[in-house]
């Protein structure tokens, strides 16, 4: 039986946040008497993650995804509740715990800017107490997986964003952690670089059985990597389960564009009881609910003379966007 590697119970986090009125008057007031209020950014959340799972955290900007990740890796103290990660209380940041995890942030970098990435790798290797031989072996293995070679010897400042991100990944994985926390790792990367990164993460997860917790606004990251997603809305979990179930729930219908041989066939189809979105000459678009999609499609193919058909599924971005845009979207 696969064990839970992350166990979060009734977790809450509050921050003291100051607000300022506009104009000079507001600035002066803010300088002398700062109004602060306690804001609960994470509200009583609970979830468990199994070893080897890849879980995507979804939510709008400011929903609390990054705060959750930072509490899981021990950077932020929780205000209430408990977190156990790999048998440790993360915020104690014990050496054995830190050797087991890594955090990769798409918008922040740890590589030494003026030096080639290889120098940062060896520095990290010494911090994780790897001897030179072992460090060399791991750098070789990871650079092969990431498909980087010459870039290792070029100063970081001269690398492209994609090459830099790959190098960041190598630096963050040199100690072969069991748990990866990835905060928007594909931010700013071009399509090919995004795809390569996803390919690498999939391979890494398959080869090492590492657990991956991921936040991303690129839905492709989520759909190609995560079977399970946790949706965060205003600091609470609104959905925790399989991604395909979520998509079905948020988009219960599919559209089919049917091209008939004649307009007569299209009219016949229109009058056969299906929900019609629109009809032009011999083309008709009908809407079918997901749960009897296959049977309906079979009936149409058997009973009508059809030239061609196209199944249109609403893009995942659009579906997930519903959760991100509308704050109280009922999932």
């Amino acid at each position, binding site marked *: 039986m696969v064990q839970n590697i992350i166990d979060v119970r009734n977790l809450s986090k509050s*921050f003291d946040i100051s607000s300022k009125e506009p104009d000079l008057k507001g600035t002066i007031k803010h300088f002398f008497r700062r109004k602060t209020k306690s804001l609960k950014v994470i509200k009583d959340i609970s979830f468990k993650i199994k070893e080897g799972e890849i879980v995507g955290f979804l939510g709008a900007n400011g929903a609390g995804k990054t705060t959750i990740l930072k509490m899981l890796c021990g*950077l932020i103290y929780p205000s209430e509740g408990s977190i156990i990660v790999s048998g440790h209380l993360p915020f104690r*940041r014990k050496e054995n715990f830190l050797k087991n995890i890594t955090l990769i942030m798409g918008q*922040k970098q*740890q590589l030494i800017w*003026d030096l080639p990435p290889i120098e940062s790798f060896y*520095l990290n290797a*010494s911090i994780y107490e790897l001897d030179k031989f072992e460090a060399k072996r791991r750098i070789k293995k990871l650079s092969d997986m990431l498909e980087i070679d010459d870039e290792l010897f070029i100063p970081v400042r001269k690398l492209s964003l994609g090459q830099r991100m790959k190098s960041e990944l190598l630096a963050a994985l040199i100690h072969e952690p069991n748990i990866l926390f990835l905060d928007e790792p594909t931010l700013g990367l071009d399509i090919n670089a995004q795809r390569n990164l996803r390919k690498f993460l999939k391979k890494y997860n398959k080869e090492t059985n590492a657990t991956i917790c991921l936040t991303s606004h690129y839905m492709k990251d989520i759909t190609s990597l995560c079977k399970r997603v946790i949706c965060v809305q205003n600091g609470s979990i609104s959905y925790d389960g399989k991604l395909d179930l979520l998509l079905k729930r948020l988009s219960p219908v599919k559209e089919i564009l049917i091209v008939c041989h004649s307009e007569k066939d299209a009219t016949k189809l229109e009058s056969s009881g299906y929900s019609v979105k629109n009809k032009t000459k011999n083309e008709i678009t009908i809407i079918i609910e997901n749960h009897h999609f296959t049977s309906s499609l079979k009936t149409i193919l058997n009973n009508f003379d059809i030239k061609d058909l196209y199944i249109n599924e609403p893009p995942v971005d659009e579906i997930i966007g519903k959760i991100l845009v509308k704050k109280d979207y009922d999932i």
Partner: protein
Amino acid sequence: MNLRKYLKVYKNFLHTSLAAELEYKTNILIDLITAILSLIGSIFLISIFFQNNATIGGWEFEEALIIQSIYTILNGITNTWFNPNLTEIVKHIREGTLDFVLLKPIDSQFFISLKKINPSGFLEIILGFCLLLFCMRINQINLNLSFLTLFLITIICSIFILYSLWFFICTTTIWFVKTWNAIEVLRSFLYIGRFPLNSFSFSLRIFFSVFIPIAFITTIPSEVFLGVSQLWKILLEVIVATVFLITSRKFWLFALKFYSSASS
């Protein structure tokens, strides 16, 4: 603490930061020239003060040069280690990159205090020692083991006091986010360390000994160097350095509990 691991990591810190600095040769050259000119300027300034006075606060020009040489050594240490590392703390906190430091299986204070090195500060340290050797000659000071030990102890204590003060201010960044001004004030106070403590009024002497023990850090090693220091002063410096170092360490660990990291 695994000493071997820390030595190995420090070796890598030295290597990477030297390599990074050596990428910019002109910058190093400018820093070197600045260090030489700054020392010449300081000696010139002191000589102006002594033009009309044989002594200032009971110190003659040749003796005051000892304070200048110790100041130069300490300033060299500041520029070699404290300035490149401790000012970076503010950046780490503002930009949230302290996250990377805190998630490494290594002491965070060690990491942020020693990761970088500025090689041009070495020249200042060398210049300071050269001036000190010169002062030995003109003040006819003889070297012996107890003298060297005491001198070394007081210099180390001075370094610890300076480091703790600087580190303490940088730690407050966790709450206040920007503390550049406080660091600048500390650096300005450090300039005061070029003059003997006795040359200040009583109230200023108390201020610079008790509240911000800047004058302490140059005057006591200089008195030891001249063989005129009293034992209680040396002991006091050792106590102050220990208290400052422990307090700055505890304060850092306490402050980390309030670290909220920067938003993404």
